[in-house]
């Protein structure tokens, strides 16, 4: 069987350091910057979890919205029902988020085992359809139940609390995916991405690994959705299930670079900052300019920022090596 790479400590060590810095950041930041930081954390975590499955296996999923939306909407509805209506016991917030994660896990196992038989663009379309299907069904359920807007308890909407819960979720996602990428499991996923038939031939149970990988990435998305839910004072289905959750992680990962693990982090941070800048400086024309930026990313940055850095490094190395000419062949 396969043997995983060992975890390189020097590469993982920066993660706790950054965590500590970010945990104390709110005391030095203004409210507005804290809100931006929340968004950055959310998109970084989402891109990481998208990249964990789709980047490794090359099964391009466009159904992330099903999981983010389910996590977000479940958390909102549960908090609303338990705190305002008293239908369910009041649970501590992290437990509610974990419950949301559990539900997305079950959902993802079902969706994954069905759609992962498809390949290429068929898989992409099927997952895209699944996202809309989940949204449509919840919308139908919600209308028959007579709910339109779900209000959230105000005391949880404290920016510091939202920030900390997102920070913890993001680092949990980061640690879990980093660990799994370097384990036997990640190796199997990577192998599936490179050549699925060969992987099956070597003895990797491809459908099991694919489904599990899909479900793990989905759980991360559900947890992120759950922690992000309290950022809003009220939620509607069409806001919880907005298609951006499916497409932006893909574009962000592309902006950062698909090949490396740093790609999604860099891409998500950059794009969120750019979008915030456009939102502030162009106000009502934001969507048009932002959309054009997205197209430009797809058109002109096929290898992303990390790809450019690698290219720059390669050319520098070339230049350094230039004086030493290639050895002549003995005649």
């Amino acid at each position: 069987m396969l043997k995983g790479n060992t975890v390189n400590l020097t590469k993982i060590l920066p993660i706790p350091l950054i965590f500590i810095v970010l945990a104390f950041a709110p005391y030095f930041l203004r409210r507005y910057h804290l809100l931006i930081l929340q968004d950055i954390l959310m998109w970084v975590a989402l891109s990481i979890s998208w990249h964990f499955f789709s980047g490794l296996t090359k099964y391009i999923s466009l159904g992330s919205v099903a999981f983010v939306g389910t996590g977000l909407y479940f958390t909102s509805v549960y908090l609303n029902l338990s705190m305002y209506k008293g239908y369910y016991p009041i649970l501590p917030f992290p437990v509610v988020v974990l419950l949301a994660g559990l539900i997305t896990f079950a959902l993802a196992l079902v969706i994954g085992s069905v759609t992962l038989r498809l390949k290429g663009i068929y898989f992409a379309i099927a997952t895209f359809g699944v996202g809309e299907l989940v949204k449509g069904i919840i919308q139908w359920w919600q209308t028959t139940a007579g709910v339109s807007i779900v209000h959230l308890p105000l005391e949880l909407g404290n920016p510091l609390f939202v920030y900390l819960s997102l920070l913890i979720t993001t680092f949990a996602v980061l640690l879990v995916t980093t660990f799994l990428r370097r384990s036997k499991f990640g190796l199997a996923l990577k192998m599936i991405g490179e050549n699925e038939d060969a992987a099956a031939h070597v003895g990797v149970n491809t459908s099991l690994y694919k489904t599990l990988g899909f479900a793990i990435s989905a759980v991360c998305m559900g947890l992120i959705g759950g922690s992000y839910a309290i950022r809003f004072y009220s939620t509607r289905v069409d806001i919880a299930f907005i298609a951006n959750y499916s497409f932006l992680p893909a574009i962000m990962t592309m902006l950062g670079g698909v090949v490396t693990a740093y790609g999604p982090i860099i891409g998500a941070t950059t794009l969120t900052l750019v979008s915030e800048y456009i939102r502030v400086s162009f106000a009502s024309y934001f969507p048009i300019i932002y959309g054009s930026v997205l197209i430009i990313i797809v058109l002109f940055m096929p290898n992303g920022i990390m790809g450019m850095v690698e290219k720059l490094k390669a050319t520098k190395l070339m230049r350094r090596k230039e004086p030493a000419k290639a050895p002549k062949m003995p005649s």
Partner: protein
Amino acid sequence: MWDIILRGAINGAMFALIAVGLNLQYGVTRILNIAHGDFLMLGAFITAFVFKFHGVNPLVSLAISGPTVFVLGVLIYGIVFRRLVRLSRSVEELEFKSLLACFSLMFIIQNVIVIVTKYYPQLQYVGTTYLNETIFIMGERLELNRIVAAVVAIIISVLLYILLRSTRAGLAVRATAQEPTGAQVVGINISRVHMISFGLSVLLSALAGSLLSMIYPNLNAVTGPHYTFIALAVIVIGGTGSFIGSLLGGFLMGYAYYVTTKTEALLAMPVVYAFLIIMLLIKPKGLFGR
């Protein structure tokens, strides 16, 4: 009973027209335009604009919305997708990247409509409710506009079929869809064929939008994706590259949609998604696919 047969067929004719355009375009260029429904909204929007502000008959405005969106489509292809096609190393990469580019297009078009409706609040819902008289067929009440729209939709689809089957340009398009390399060898400029078919596809979508704006008063900026999904489901049912398949799939979808609308209106779209996913799983090449 006659109600279901007639109204389902009307839906079917519209859906077939929407799907035929997307099918042509995907078959030829391999770009899956998920902004297809938003081009439809653009057509509906133009029709509503000229109807409400200049009193132009919606049927006449087909001659305005179609060409406008055609030019727009050709420009978008020239600016965005030609580069994408040139840079992509494989069909898979092209398909994936064009999905992302089309999503961005969708984002832009939707929001352009939203921004314009901020200045013209009358255009928030782009329905024109033209020819709203009722007539009776087989004892069923039916609005005249639905029949007119369905007939026009069928005429347009048939015209496209004739164009593809019996003209030299149509031959070039079919050749490019079947064998791009071979088409290039015999001297077809496939880049131009791609551009024209993209334009033609969004033109058909815009025409469908103009017709739909006569029927449905509650079309608005965000309903575009619904029609994209309907078109996708129809294509998957009928098979890519099959004209007859799109027609039959359109009618099948039209009946399914109408029956669910009658019984549980909010489940109409989920039924479309379910059709799409189930068909993909059972027979991704479709009933008539090559």
